[in-house]
């Protein structure tokens, strides 16, 4: 579904953020992308979404990438960016930056209508997603009047309404209280689509992802089952990480 082939990327010449990164993610997999700050997790997301590198024209402030980034058999480029973005749903770390319409409902309809759905179809889809998430109460609420947890659920709902084939989530549990964190984790586990999650919350990654890719200084330091990587104290500590809390006794 997603393939990075020897991708090297730099915003500035001579200062690579990613070096020779290669991995492949199969359809239906849930993969945790972990690593210390500055390891290149967000850059991987940006490259996939065409917000940097080849998708953004491979020049200027968007940086330059070498290698191939393939989503569902198509190489990411400005030419096919809209088709590729149609397949990807991205939940930003800061939900405030994701929810730009006045109400949750309008935010949910925004993408659907942009992609050519009729209002009736879009409303049916949005309603279905809210029902599935058990968040129907969000429908009439204003974005600026909801709590952080509700906002995060709303952000997830707006992206799920688009019915993406791949869900990309950047720190989905940051700034959430334990109760809302648990709701988000349960929601992620229930979703059938391919998921790529970046986070420092390794307990959440352990709960949701079957596989983990550990990035360190722009390189893939490890790629394998969560069970193996997240229990490997030596590997994690060598890459400025720690064992998940549950394994720290």
């Amino acid at each position, binding site marked *: 579904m997603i393939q990075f082939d020897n991708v090297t990327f730099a915003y500035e010449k001579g200062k690579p953020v990613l070096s020779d990164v290669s991995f492949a993610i199969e359809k239906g997999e849930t993969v945790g992308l972990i690593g210390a700050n500055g390891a290149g997790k967000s850059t991987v997301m940006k490259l996939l979404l065409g917000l940097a590198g080849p998708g953004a024209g491979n020049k200027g402030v968007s940086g330059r990438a070498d290698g191939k980034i393939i989503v569902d058999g198509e190489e990411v480029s400005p030419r096919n960016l809209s088709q590729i973005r149609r397949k990807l749903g991205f939940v930003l770390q800061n939900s405030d*930056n994701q929810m730009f319409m*006045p109400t949750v409902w309008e935010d949910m309809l*925004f993408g659907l209508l942009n992609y050519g759905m009729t209002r009736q179809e879009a409303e049916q889809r949005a309603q279905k997603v809210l029902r599935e998430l058990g968040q129907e109460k969000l429908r009439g609420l204003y974005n600026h009047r909801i709590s952080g947890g509700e906002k995060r659920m709303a952000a997830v709902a707006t992206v799920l309404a688009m019915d993406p084939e791949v869900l990309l989530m950047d720190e989905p549990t940051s700034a959430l209280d334990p109760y809302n964190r648990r709701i988000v984790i349960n929601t992620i586990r229930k979703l059938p689509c391919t998921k790529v999650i970046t986070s420092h919350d390794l307990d959440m990654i352990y709960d949701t992802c079957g596989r983990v890719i550990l990035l360190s200084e722009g390189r893939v330091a490890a790629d394998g089952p969560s069970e193996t990587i997240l229990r490997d104290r030596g590997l994690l500590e060598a890459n400025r990480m720690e064992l998940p809390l549950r394994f720290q006794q």
Partner: protein
Amino acid sequence: MSQNIERSIRDLREMDTLASGDSPLHRVSAGAKLLVTVVYILVVVSFDKFNMSGLMFMLLYPAVLFAVSGIPVSTCFYKLRFVLPIVCAVGIFNPILDRTPAFPLGSFVVTTGMISMVTLLMKGVFCLMASFLLAASTRIEAICAVLRKIHVPSMLVTLLLLTYRYAAVLAEEANVMTQAYNLRAPGQKGIHYKAWGSFLGQLLLRSMDRAEELYSSMLLRGYHGEFYYAQGGSSSIGDVLYAVSWCALFIAARCVNLTQLLGTSVLR
């Protein structure tokens, strides 16, 4: 200072809340409201500077709209509190520059300068009220959708929408920074002038980052300059009637002094 910014953010959001209301005026299509507002402003502005009585009739439009929409008049004047003094200042020198006597009012002589000052003031206030009523009863996205329909360039319309949306983002960032400053400068009133340079620079950079992320979020959900999600794009017969009736009335008021006509008929 932080409280002022918070108040401004609330004000901005209150406009969204007002625009999401449900009244007969809110249900009129954005196109019809935009057309009527533009015609209203053009007609009001075109009145002769001494035609105060003719202009008086134009108060009917905002009065009816306030009554129908349920939007409080006080909210309008509260939100326009910073602009109104400027409007008032526009004709302030007219009574000094033009002292030609017009008519006596008891022992007091009203000059043409005074009349033109009041007329200018009325024009300004009426136009502001009409613009406020449009903004308070119509979603910004619906207005943008109409602008796109009449082929206003996508770039300009996007700029309008994003300016409106980013104003809140900018204010939020300014608020966070002011709070952080105040917490480390107890007892200090406002921000010291020496810190203004770096404060504004940081504010710009932070707002740009947030704005960029917001725009990316729009792009990732298929936005490319069109406003498919805006309601009120299509017009019904009711909308056409609304627009035609008001425009006809405005033009009639411009051609005939309806206030005078009404007054004469009542006196008869």
